[in-house]
């Protein structure tokens, strides 16, 4: 029996009241603003990469609803373990756009000292944990962070993001199993965007869904329309609330589509058809939510367009702010390996070019 796909924003533009979260207009506008910002950021960043101004970028175009909806469901104090494609949740949680953009440049405006490739953000102040490239390593970590909170009696949860490909890793299995055994307040959020680079999810697993896999660990899995920001908000809120109240973990599969390339290094025409792309374009989450807001009278067409334009300008301002920053100082190469610099790194500092002078 296939798991049902939960949808709030129906195709005809109406809402399923059972699956729509209780949101004020001002909440809807927060969702909207962040989705637009995310879309604008992706567009700009891809251009920056194409013109050689940044080295690399991972877009999430097409996945804005699952990013922003799930991010919106979080509360202060919750822990976030993102993958490289989850800048949406960072934005929503208030990670400054300029800090985010600075990381793309890897210069002195990068709060992480240019250490990592673009898309590898973090921010201790909002419990946004450092992204790493290896797929799914963050999953068991999210179980540990959640356990720590539970042990101290805090009512917070940890959410961890990963893709359909990530569900094949050993890390997924051990994390899900530990979460089930210790009933940690962990929400496993799988953005099933249909591909792991070139591999379609149908060849990633013979299971008929990712959500079903939760069964194997004794807790619930739900499938939600990942292009429906309202359903995602609702489902994630419920899962987080249950987690905070001691109800244990949940696996959420957000069914979505990566509309762009895997990264700026990828050429998706090698492995997928125009038709498929066109089919999913109809379900573009940003357009879908825009249409809903207009229908619901929250914004009109002009206002929607203006807000999109504002988002693009905001991104441009952030780029201006960061691009001219000086390069990362060479000394930083040997910092932060240990809390205190040991003798051998003090010696290796002499290898730095400036050290000759």
């Amino acid at each position: 029996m296939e798991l049902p796909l939960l949808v709030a924003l129906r195709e005809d533009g109406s809402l399923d009241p059972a699956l729509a979260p209780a949101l004020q207009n001002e909440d809807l506008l927060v969702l909207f603003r962040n989705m637009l910002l995310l879309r604008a950021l992706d567009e700009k960043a891809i251009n920056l990469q194409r013109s050689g101004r940044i080295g690399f970028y991972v877009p999430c175009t097409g996945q804005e609803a699952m990013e922003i909806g799930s991010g919106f469901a979080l509360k202060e104090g919750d822990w976030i373990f993102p993958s490289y494609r989850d800048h949406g949740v960072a934005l929503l949680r208030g990670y400054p756009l300029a800090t985010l953009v600075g990381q793309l440049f890897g210069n002195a405006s990068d709060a992480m000292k240019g250490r990592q490739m673009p898309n590898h953000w973090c921010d201790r102040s909002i419990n946004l944990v450092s992204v790493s490239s290896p797929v799914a390593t963050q999953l068991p970590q999210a179980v540990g962070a959640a356990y720590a909170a539970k042990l101290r009696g805090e009512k917070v949860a940890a959410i961890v993001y990963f893709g359909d490909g990530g569900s094949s890793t050993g890390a997924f299995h051990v994390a899900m199993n530990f979460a089930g055994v210790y009933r940690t307040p962990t929400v496993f959020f799988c953005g099933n965007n249909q591909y792991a680079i070139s591999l379609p999810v149908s060849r990633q697993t013979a299971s008929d869904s990712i959500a079903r896999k939760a069964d194997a660990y004794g807790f619930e899995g739900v499938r939600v329309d990942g292009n429906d920001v309202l359903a995602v908000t609702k489902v994630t809120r419920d899962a987080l609330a249950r987690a905070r109240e001691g109800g244990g973990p949940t696996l959420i599969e957000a069914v979505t589509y990566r509309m762009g390339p895997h990264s700026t290094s990828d050429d998706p025409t090698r492995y997928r058809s125009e038709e498929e792309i066109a089919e999913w374009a109809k379900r573009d989450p940003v357009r879908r939510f825009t249409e809903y807001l207009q229908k619901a009278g929250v914004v009109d067409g002009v206002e929607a367009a203006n807000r999109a334009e504002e988002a693009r300008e905001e991104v441009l301002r952030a780029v201006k702010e960061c691009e001219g920053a000086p390069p990362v100082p060479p000394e930083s190469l040997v910092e932060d390996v240990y809390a205190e610099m040991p003798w051998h790194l003090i010696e290796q500092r002499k290898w730095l070019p400036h050290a000759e002078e």
Partner: protein
Amino acid sequence: MPVMTLIQAINAALSGEMERNPAVVLLGEDIGNSGGVFRATEGLWERFGPERVMDTPLAEAGILGMAIGMALNGLRPVAEIQFADFIYPAFDQIVSELAKFRYRSAGQFPAPVVIRAPSGGGIGGGLYHSQSPEAYFVHTAGLTVVMPSTPADGKGLLVSAMRSPDPVIFLEPKALYRTAKGEVPEGEYDVPLGKAHTVREGTDVSVISYGAMVPVAEGAAAEAEKEGVSVEITDLRTLWPLDVEAVDRSVQKTGRAVVLHEAPRTCGFGAELATLVQERSFLHLKAPVARVTGFDTPFPYALEKIYLPDVRRTLDAVRGAVNF
């Protein structure tokens, strides 16, 4: 001071620090009501409860991944890997994550996890209950690698590890768990990381070693003395970051060095030690730095005693250095 075995000293370090610091939690396979396969955690489950002494499912990657998450969120996890040989399923978490968290987050997310793992041969454990994996971890930037050789150091170094701001791989020479006995200071007691210990002073040859090979070095030194050769023994205690001054000092005094470990030879930690010695003390050297090590083979069952460096092979190397 009470006399303890190494395993008792480890237990004392854990219980003392758990008593003092509520953030310390232990996790691992069979460490709870059964007290650990070597009994390192005996009595702790009863005393501190299953939430702080966690029996885990069988998955080292889960143990380490979970420990990292705990450390990020304010706990001081001490993960037990049942045998160091079973650390490899967690290798990705250790090498890709644990070692690099501080660096990649520019200091925002340190992950001070302690990994305890019984290491080395001597108990008839064959391929998979005998390995000495320290070189993998010394090669991995960001880790601190520690190995005690006495009960007092077992307690003191483990306490320091649990207070270190950095992740520590704490390798325990399982061959010494019950054979190493000695006085151990009571109460709060720590031995600083990064400081070697001169086990025996000497003037002719420096033997540099750690863990279960320290007693072998002592055996060889006693034999050498009969032949009129004076051996100085340095027990590194912390393998990395190394107490390089202690090594320099000893080698520059004697002019001859033998490095001794049971791990396989090629690209073992002995290679690093030998290279550092020749880099830093070249003009003092009267002979090449010699290595006495395990073989470049998997660890054998029946031939364990032949595999492990012993007094005979160590003495040969000492003689070789003197007679070069």
